[in-house]
């Protein structure tokens, strides 16, 4: 009786190994929530063109993508921020060599409720608002209403990018943090929903999430520069001050299906998909 069970277990475990070995035509892509829609659009088109290959795309945040790449549970990590020193060190320890491929650009929109009269802010004002130094909308030309700060969770590349480039103004020695009272929401969609329903809310996310229910604020990089709305043109010509690169990370230089997929994302067709999902193609 026990023997029988043993034999069955043995067969099952072997067949698992066999399955894993035969499945190298399927790859796992994981990471940035900002890029999930883009990744999925790429995967669909790619699989249409290459039947037999299978691309699975999941989100979870840029950090989640890196930790999966490092632990070997995904082939490609999508990220909306650079890999951190710490992560590289950890990857090296596990024998993983992260290679970076820049695949698109994204403008970060700062959005408010359409009822909010404020429609222009400088990056300095944004830093004041998100760190909590400015707590009332009237201080930046709005109604007398307490500002409700909406942020992404710390596993979000968007959170990290916004902190480093807007709150800390690219100064690596800066100690600025999001105000403790900032609400941490778990997805861009949650921020979009809260801004749509809250006249005092202000949040940030990738341009692709803007809809009629939110109003993107025009932003100026400095005191004398002009206020610019987030759009594909303003990101390409560099006038919009908060835009960031989007990356794919692979283990070593990509090979096999991974290489085919990465090449596809950089091809004209792949970059057209970038445009269609409201991101900005990398200039070729």
């Amino acid at each position, binding site marked *: *009786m*026990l023997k029988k069970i043993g034999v069955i277990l043995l067969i099952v475990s072997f067949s698992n190994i066999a399955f894993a070995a035969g499945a190298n035509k399927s790859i796992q892509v994981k990471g940035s929530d900002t890029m999930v829609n883009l990744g999925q659009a790429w995967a669909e088109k790619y699989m249409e063109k290459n039947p037999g290959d299978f691309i699975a795309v999941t989100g*979870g*945040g840029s*950090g*989640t993508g*890196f*930790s999966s790449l*490092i*632990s070997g549970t995904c082939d490609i990590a999508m990220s909306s921020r650079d890999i*951190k020193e*710490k*992560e590289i060190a*950890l990857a090296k320890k596990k024998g993983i060599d992260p290679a970076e491929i820049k695949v698109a650009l994204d403008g970060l929109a700062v959005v408010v409720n359409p009822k909010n009269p404020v429609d222009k802010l400088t990056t300095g004002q944004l830093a004041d608002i998100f760190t909590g130094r400015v707590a009332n909308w009237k201080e930046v030309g709005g109604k007398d*209403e*307490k*500002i*409700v700060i909406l942020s992404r*969770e*710390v*596993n979000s590349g968007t959170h*990290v990018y916004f902190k480093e480039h807007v709150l800390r103004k690219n100064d690596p020695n800066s*100690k600025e*943090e999001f105000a*403790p*009272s*900032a*609400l*941490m*929401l*778990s997805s861009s969609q949650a921020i979009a929903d*809260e801004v749509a*329903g*809250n006249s*005092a*809310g202000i949040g940030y996310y990738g341009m692709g999430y803007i809809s009629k229910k939110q109003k993107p604020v025009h932003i100026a990089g400095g005191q004398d520069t002009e206020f610019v709305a987030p759009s594909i043109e303003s990101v390409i010509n560099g006038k919009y001050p908060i835009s960031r690169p989007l990356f794919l990370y692979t283990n070593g230089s990509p090979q096999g299906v991974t290489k085919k997929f990465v090449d596809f994302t950089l091809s004209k067709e792949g970059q057209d998909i970038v445009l269609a999902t409201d991101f900005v193609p990398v200039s070729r």
Partner: protein
Amino acid sequence: MRKIKEFIIEKGILFCGLASIFFVVLIFLFLLKEGVSLFKFVGPLRFLFGSSWYPISEPPQLGILPLILGSLLVTLGAAVISIPIGVGCAVYIAEIAPVKIKEVLKAGIELLAAIPSVVLGFIGMVTLVPIVKGLFHIPTGLTALSGSIMLAFMAMPTIVSVAEDALYSIPKNYKEGAFALGATHWQTIWRVMLPAASSGIVAAVMLGIGRVIGETMAVMMITGNAAVLPKSILVPVRTLTATIAAEMGEAVVGSEHYFALFAIGIVLFIISFAINVTADVFLHKRQQ
């Protein structure tokens, strides 16, 4: 042959019986091993009583006081809401309700227990949150109060069913004696039944609270997750559970942040263990 069969089955069942304890011990050891590593970086007191939680800054600030207070506040709110309603409901079902209504109520409560917490969170987000915001004229409805109300729904089924059991197990002659002395129905319930069932009711409350403090999904969706020291129940809070759930994916394995999340796990484990032990003590008291 029969003996062998008997032997195998016996050992199999023994294994099943021991498995749960075995797993609990394993989980606790793992939690301890990963969590205690944190104290190489941060002192336990600074961890427990530090008031800022910025896990990904350089250097990270890992104070979980706001998270502990957030969890306690949400739990306290849920208890204040669910205990009177839950105990009242149990009294009604056990003592007053006619058979037909009793059946309907019991089915309804079982159904309430069957709603997945993510669904409760979702419903709370679209219905309760705007109501709370409008009612109290506060900047956002994502507050501890919203979380408390939703979690009260989750605690209620546990409280009702355990408290109801406690009321049923009171010997009949208590009640008959009270009636014989000329007490009204309400006097009997208030002066005789509830005190007699008190240890069971305390156990019911504890089990309900135990359920609330460990709840994650619903609170993560509707409490706003801001790591501030809460000054009232109408502000956003961040709970221990939501912090682990939201940040575990990001934490670089082996980093201070990663160990801190495990240490939060230990804190949670200790809190819910204490609650369960209390409930157990009261349940046993009743049986004696």
